[in-house]
Structures are given as structure tokens and as C-alpha cells.
């Protein structure tokens, strides 16, 4: 194999693996969200009580950050530490893709 072909192949594999880790699948996220739905609802617009956040429309990368902090115990919450503890990186990305794609939370604007 020539050098340029090797470089191209390495580049292709590199791109592929970045794509695979960067993007969650919202369809799989919906499937995996069954256990979340009791408190957050199917689309993330339910809050079972006032301490429960709305997830719908929240940024995916923020949701990923929050779930990973719950998983590691960096962020302490008795309920969420338990649920997030069982999730893989892929699960977290899929769930974030699902809830972030729903219509809900908004960015406040000073002009209002």
C-alpha cells in the first residue's frame, strides 16, 4: 500500500470514529429513555415535582456533561446518581440527542 493511500485510510478511519462518538442517535435515545420518562416525561417537558428539571430543548452537550457528572458522582443527587451509574457513553449521547431535539426550554432574551 502506498503512503498516500495509508494516510487517506487513516484519515477516513479517524473521521469515522469521531462521527461515531460525537453524535447520539435520538431514536435509540427515545428507546432508552423509558426509565427517565416517569419523572421527565417522554419529551422532557414533564417535571414530576418542582425539583425536577425540564429537559426538552436543553443543549445536548450540557445534558451529556450533567449525566457524566451524575455518573461519576461529581454531581450529587440520590436518584440521578443511581440511574446514571448504569449508562454507557453511547447511552448518554443517545439520551441527550433525544431530549435536546424536543421543543421546550428557551434562551431568555434581554429585550423581553
Amino acid at each position: 500500500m502506498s503512503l498516500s493511500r495509508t494516510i487517506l485510510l487513516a484519515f477516513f478511519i479517524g473521521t469515522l470514529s469521531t462521527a461515531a462518538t460525537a453524535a447520539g442517535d435520538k431514536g435509540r435515545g427515545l428507546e432508552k429513555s423509558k426509565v427517565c420518562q416517569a419523572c421527565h416525561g417522554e419529551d422532557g417537558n414533564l417535571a414530576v415535582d418542582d425539583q425536577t428539571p425540564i429537559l426538552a430543548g436543553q443543549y445536548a452537550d450540557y445534558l451529556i456533561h450533567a449525566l457524566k457528572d451524575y455518573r461519576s458522582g461529581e454531581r450529587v443527587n440520590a436518584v440521578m446518581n443511581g440511574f446514571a451509574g448504569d449508562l454507557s457513553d453511547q447511552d448518554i449521547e443517545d439520551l441527550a440527542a433525544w431530549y435536546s431535539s424536543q421543543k421546550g426550554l428557551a434562551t431568555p432574551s434581554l429585550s423581553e
Partner: protein
Amino acid sequence: MTKRILSVFFIVMLSQAVFAQNEGDPERGRIIAYTCFGCHGVPHQKNVYPTYSVPKLGGQTEGYLISSLQAYQRGDRKHPTMHAQANTLTDQDIRDIASYFVTVHKGDES
């Protein structure tokens, strides 16, 4: 009799004071929240390290916003900027700010 009326009056006043303290004032909250807009009012604003989008707050639940600010105050949620910001707030400020963000539904939906 006068004494009884007076004591009833006193109790009513007291309960109103307690009630007033527990209620957030969204109008006052909107003014105090001015500082928050520097990050939370900019769509897709990024936290520097670790890198992730600053969360949307418009339409969030009031109790969650209050507990989050309290957790940043105590240092239970670790974020240097939010810790510093939350430390400038009184309990009443926190209730007012939270009651304001609950009312926000419009804005950038992207």
C-alpha cells in the same frame, strides 16, 4: 377583647411576612438577572473548560433553579463562575431570579 383582636392582627401580619419572604418576585428577579444574561442570554454560548453549552434557563422549573443556585453557593455543584455569582445572592434574590426564569418561554428556540 382588644387584646384578642390585636393578637389576631399580629398573627395575620406575621404570616403575611413569612408568605412574602417565600414568594419570588419575577419583576425584581428580571432586574437582578441582568448579570446572568452575559452567558445564559447568548444562544449556544460555550462554557470554556470543560467545553459544553451554557444551559438554557427559560421555562425551567422554579424549585430546580433554586436548588441549583443553592448548590453552587454551598459548592456542592462545582463551577467557579457560578459559585462566585451565587455567593453574591441572598435567599430572596435566588427566589426572585428563579421566579423570573420560569416565566420566560419566548426567545431563541434554536
